[in-house]
């Protein structure tokens, strides 16, 4: 599934990031395969999304989140 489908409070592990769509800056902030991601809070319409990636707290737009593939712990 993609990061955009994560529910509030849910956690997942990033498995793949599309390097074409994801700016380098986001990768450098820790959005890399293998890292733990948690959806802390969502704004109305689930956009933007407030994330905790590996201890870094940041907000990104949904249009970016759909290019990040994750796996939830209970799958």
């Amino acid at each position: 599934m993609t990061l955009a489908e994560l529910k509030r409070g849910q956690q997942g592990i990033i498995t793949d990031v599309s390097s074409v769509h994801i700016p380098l800056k986001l990768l450098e902030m820790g959005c890399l395969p293998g890292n733990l991601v948690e959806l802390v809070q969502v704004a109305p319409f689930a956009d933007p999304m407030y994330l905790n990636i590996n201890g870094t707290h940041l907000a990104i737009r949904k249009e970016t989140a759909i290019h990040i593939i994750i796996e939830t712990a209970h799958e």
Partner: protein
Amino acid sequence: MSKQINVALIGNPNTGKTSVFNALTGLNQKVGNYPGITVEKKEGICKLPRGVKAHIIDLPGTYSLNASSLDENVVIELLLNKNDKDYPDLAVVVSDVENLKRNLLLFTQIKDLKIPTILVINMSDRMAYKGISLDIDYLEQELKTKIALISTRKNKGINELKELITHYKELSTEPCLDASSIDESYFENLRKAFPNQLLYKLWLVITQDVNFGKTDRKTYDAVEDFKTKSKTDLKRLQQKETIKRYQFINETLKKGQTIDLNSAKDLRIKLDRILTHKVWGYLIFGAILLTIFQAIYDWSSIPMDFIDSSFASLSEWTKNTLPEGAFTNLLAEGIISGLGGIVIFIPQIAFLFLFISILEESGYMSRVVFLMDRIMRRFGLSGKSVVPLISGTACAIPAIMATRNIESWKERLITILVTPFTTCSARLPVYLIIIALVIPEGRILGLSYQALTLMLLYLIGFGAAVGSAWILNKILKIKSKSFFVVEMPNYKLPLFKNVALTVLEKTKAFVFGAGKIILAISIVLWFLASYGPGDNFNNADTIVTEQYASENLTEDELHQKIESHKLEHSFIGIAGHAIEPAIRPLGYDWKIGIAIVSSFAAREVFVGTLATIYSVGSDEEETIKNRMAGEVNPILGGPLFNFASGISLLLFYAFAMQCMSTLAVVKKETNSWKWPMYQLVIMSGFAYIVALVAYQVLK
């Protein structure tokens, strides 16, 4: 004494670089808990032990050496240009102990540039709270550097840092890891082609986005031929490089850092559950804004009344004490009343700065960005545009510079263009005095009508900004990738010292900046109002005496008539009457016209200008407000400042582009006169039309 050492402070946004800078140099640069407070290079001198001096350079924060916005670019430009006079002999990488992993990415990149590097781990006061402990010796060895564990808040470790800076020559310049292993053959070829160049530097120049940067390209032009790889390939390599660096960092921190989650406390989660909530978040944001306006009104009225009457008596006292003459008149009527028109607003402006500074220092600003992004995007803005729009309520100039951390050029340009619509503190004096004159006192639901009117004006300014952004978004054909990441910093208790300093500095800048302009304009205006050409002015005595000979006027009344006749025929009166036809439909007289024209230098001149014009030819001790209330409309009779003309003036000031300094800064940030000229013409034209309609409808 040896030569000065150039020391650059480099680090991720919001790690406390400016706080370290202030601690080292004793200066007071602005600090705030929002990533992107510093947007340009700042310099200062630090005295080190043994008489050595260091030239310290504070830089904007950057997540890596791959710039993606303008403020980050400043750092890369400096580090890639060995000929720059500020090229650092020593890089001090400032990191936040709570985000060490991410902060070290940049550190490893700097190490690859083979600049002597010290690692500062700041905010050590937070370690116990977060359950973090560090093995400094191990980290120093793995990272091949010296570490200073400091807390600028608790003023710990600064001397140790100074000591390390003094001995910078002993630092190792060895890289932490070998980045070229991501593609051995490619880098091998590079090395062969440019044997004398630093490999990592070449790599940075090859991969930097050409959109940015005026990095001295000539030196590297040769590299252009070396772009044998496609853009996507390069990007994949950069990704690989990032992963490799993180692998190294993770390995290092596994041994060097322990985090005891049980003793870690997190206030953030609890606060964010409410403050960024879909419903509560917006309600709280609204309530905060409402409180600010109420406070600006209620809390500052007492000091303001005091200042107002003090200036009136000071002016009167000057007149009575100094020998009569032109100079005394200039001092009493022009300068003192002009300055009074500014000093009176210090309480309100200080309150405004206080609130903005608390919002910034607490970390709340990023939450507002988060809450507003989606809404702002509809209008072609970014959530990050909220910060300039809010800080624009203090002054548009720093606000426009604060747009530098917006990644997309189109969103940034639109933000720059619409920011001057937000109600800046220079409009406040105009609003306040006119509201006091034309809006009745009284309350509804505990909020005064006057405070509500003020709030409405702020909303109108904000609405105009957003509305014009929407239009600009439709008509500007600029292709630029829209992309948005904002870091959500921890909440922090605002540091009293930081807040107080910001308020003090900003208020001082406001008073002195405006003071200078007002002084100059008052003097010019006073001369123009006190002298005039021709018979009508010079023989005013005889003309008026003859005119009123049949009426039995008292000495005083006659004197009054003469003075006002003189004013009408002074230079300023003549100029005013010349422009009167243009502004009469808006409900103004020529004196207001002059005030509006001089406001194009800076809006806050309005009150001072009127004060100067009114005071020429009146001997009474009078506050400026009472004087304005006493003005009579020359044609219709009745008070000049009535509801219709008052609203018309308010709206004119809400929309008109009347600030030269803002135009200059827009020119600088957009690199062309085109945009500021558009702003001047379109905003002021729109202001005129709105004011015209308002007056004609309401009168």
